[in-house]
């Protein structure tokens, strides 16, 4: 087979890789992208999108179920609510197919050549791809590694059988009766909450002393309260040990040193994600690693000339939008533009119930960096829009420098606050001061008013509290 040649080769068509390839194509760079599965990566196929579809379906079902049990606060009652889960799954799969198909179309439109198969490095300038038609060698001037990450396995609870990764859980065709979630991070809590609403009995097992360890207590408190309300059992300071009898239970050791056996139809292990580097045969190259991740500089360059790495394979935060921004930057660099990573913040959202958003520095982080800070917090209890959607839990919190009122961070917890992430991110990228946010008219009635009120609060004159 002929050797294929190109200026840019992108390995992996996840959010980082496909954005990099599309942008490169737009800039006139001769580009090939290699993907062993469907385009779209974890995000579109087995991550962000399918999980959000299930979370939405679960929430809808949960609402009518509440109305089935008794008349709700707004006077709604329903009789005989039921969920055809098979249809839910096919609806979710349909969304995934639409999106992955869309990515293929966008790549084609940008004149990017797509090769399907598994890529391995031969040397710093070429890879071999195992395609359906046999091995294909591709030589490139520049190579971008965008191979992403996969769920981390526990050695004593390997995936398979009743032990599920997040990917496995999303592809179940029926809702398990009893689900144990090992790991109280955002993936475990998002899926645990959704399956609880879908009808499973859910127990969350977390080895640390708190859930969502990256967030402070104020932010996680409304989430814990809701978990309790939903009837999710939460065991902190508890370690998963091994499978119990007939693979239908999990043995855990609790904080006081006792062992406990928890019954389970399915066990979700969601303790984190590991970079996909093994199968690339990176050891043929002299690429420096940083722990399990590929080490990069502020232009996403690896230690090897003309080899770049973007996305989850380069470490935390493992977020699709970070990978996309990196991919775009690398494509522009290769087109001869002057770029480096100068983003001021990468928003992070947990689609728990309620949702949690964090952009920039938390109060604790800001203090740790030596800033003298002002905080402004505004609860949704005092927000008209929150009352009219029956969800008054949560708040918006602002962190600013005390000396010049520069906004350093914005966090929120509450229903639908994910949509506020845009305003939070924009404020920080534009280097807004408290006065800028306070002086911007925020539409009434909306949850976004809480942002303006939080900045007024930090300035000392909140109007509605």
């Amino acid at each position: 087979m002929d050797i294929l040649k190109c200026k840019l080769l992108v390995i992996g068509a996840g959010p980082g890789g496909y954005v990099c390839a599309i942008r490169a194509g737009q800039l006139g760079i001769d580009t090939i992208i290699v993907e062993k599965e469907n385009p779209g990566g974890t995000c579109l196929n087995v991550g962000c999108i399918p999980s959000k579809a299930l979370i939405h379906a679960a929430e809808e079902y949960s609402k009518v179920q509440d109305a089935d049990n008794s008349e709700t606060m707004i006077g709604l009652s329903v009789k005989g609510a039921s969920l055809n889960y098979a249809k839910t799954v096919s609806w979710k799969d349909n969304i995934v197919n639409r999106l992955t198909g869309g990515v293929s179309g966008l790549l084609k439109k940008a004149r990017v050549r797509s090769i399907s198969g598994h890529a391995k490095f031969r040397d710093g300038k070429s890879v071999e791809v195992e395609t359906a038609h046999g091995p294909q060698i591709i030589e490139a001037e520049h190579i971008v590694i965008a191979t992403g990450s996969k769920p981390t396995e526990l050695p004593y609870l390997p995936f398979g059988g009743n032990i599920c990764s997040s990917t496995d859980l999303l592809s179940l065709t029926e809702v398990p009766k009893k689900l144990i979630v090992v790991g109280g991070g955002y993936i475990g809590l998002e899926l645990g909450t959704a399956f609880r609403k879908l009808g499973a009995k859910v127990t969350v097992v977390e080895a640390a002393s708190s859930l969502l360890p990256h967030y402070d207590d104020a932010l996680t408190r409304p989430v814990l309260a809701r978990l309790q309300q939903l009837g999710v059992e939460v065991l902190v300071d508890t370690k998963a040990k091994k499978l119990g009898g007939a693979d239908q239970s999990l043995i855990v050791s609790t904080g006081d040193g006792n062992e406990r056996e928890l019954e389970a139809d399915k066990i979700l292990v969601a303790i984190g994600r590991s970079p996909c580097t093994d199968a690339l045969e990176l050891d043929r190259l002299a690429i420096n690693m940083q722990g399990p991740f590929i080490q990069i500089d502020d232009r996403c360059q690896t230690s090897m000339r003309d080899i770049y790495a973007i996305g989850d394979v380069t470490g935390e935060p493992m977020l699709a939008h970070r990978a996309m921004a990196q991919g775009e930057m690398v494509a522009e660099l290769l087109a001869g533009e002057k770029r480096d990573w100068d983003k001021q913040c990468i928003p992070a959202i947990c689609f728990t119930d309620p949702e949690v958003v964090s952009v920039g520095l938390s109060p604790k982080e800001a203090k740790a960096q030596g800033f003298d800070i002002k905080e402004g917090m505004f609860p949704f209890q005092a927000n008209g829009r929150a009352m009219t959607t029956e969800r008054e839990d949560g708040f918006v919190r602002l962190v600013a420098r005390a000396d010049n009122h520069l906004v350093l961070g914005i966090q929120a917890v509450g229903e639908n606050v994910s949509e506020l992430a845009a305003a939070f991110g924009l404020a920080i990228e534009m280097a807004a001061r408290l006065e800028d946010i306070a002086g911007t008219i925020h539409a009434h009635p909306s949850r976004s008013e809480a942002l303006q009120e939080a900045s007024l609060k930090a300035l000392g004159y909140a109007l509605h509290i």
Partner: protein
Amino acid sequence: MGTYTIKMPDVGEGVAEAELVELNVPIGEMVREDDIFAAVMTDKATVEIPTPVSGKVIWFAGEIGDTVPVGAPLVRLEVEGEGNEGETSADGQTQVVSSALQPVAAEEPLSVTNAQAAPQPVYEVKTSPKVVAQNPKALMRAEGEKPLAAPALRKRVKDAGMDLRQIAGSGPAGRITHEDLDAHFAGGGTAAPSLASAQNHDVTDIKIVGMRRKIAERMVEAKTRIPHISIVEEIDVTSLEDLRMKLNDERGEKSKLTVLPFLMGAMVTALKEQPQLNANYDDNANIVHQFGAAHIGIATQTPKGLMVPVVRHCEALSIWQMAQELSRVTQAARDGNAKREELSGSTISITSLGKLGAIATTPIINKPELAIVGVNRMAVRPMWNGTEFVPRKMMNISCSFDHRIIDGWDAAIFVQRLKTLLETPAMIFVEG
């Protein structure tokens, strides 16, 4: 009615005084707030001076062309209500003349009142690309403080190949505004300015014809067909220079000797010992024509381009005759009236760039010859004589040979021979 004094602003860059170059409003006329009433010039820039208040001009510090110290009164206005001076307009006139003559220090009490009463005059730089203009309100950040700027501005800075950290910010919390960046660009910033980064997409097509095409063809022929070997050697020309000066002194009004005739003499002597270098190689016929005559080609820059006029039969010429003939043929080439035989038939060549001669060059052989001697720049350098450094006049020669015919060994012997002859110039004149 009060009197309002506007002082010569600090126009920056440690300038102590500025010359009045424009007075736009005659005495007795009204000015409105923000009107430009004058322009002053330092050796760096012309700066326009606006007035922060409205009023009637009652006094100027001088005429156009006068120099006014920074901080001294520049103009006095009669304004509604209280001015920034206690005096009435009537007294103002007298008070003014004396104060203008006083040293700047004497104005201290006044300047305090002024600072409190009047807003800082805003002035803009009108001309001069040299001034590092920054938005006057812009402040540099404290050490280690992150520069604040919106993404669009950061992109502008990157595209211009600049560093955000070098740009002062005048916005809220020290944010860098687009105006700050404009001012930085206009001032030609300390980092790579926009001018240097501006891309020029002009393409000028120049047809290569005539003499230039001929030169191009010959160069390609020589450089691609002949495997060149080049040798660079340094030569102590102190004795040669002493000799040359003495000879020139005795010549009086007649044309002076340059180094070249001596080099030609040395080449004639050296070629007698190595006649195989004084030849033309017909590489199509595989024949080397070795000559008894030394016809030395002299690479000459002419208005039309490079030409190689020839000093013929150097073996039969004295130093003075060579100098004379050298001057004649090169002048003829430059004037464009050299005859055909004066431009052909050389057996070996010299290339000299005179004062532009650099440290070393890689001369290209004048095909079909076998060797070319390049002369580099002469310079006084400290040389170690065994016990101490002494100043010596040193000059390098860079010689290329056709390696198909001339081995490195023979080439090196020739260069060493030239070195010996030029360092002991008497040997050039003594028949072996």
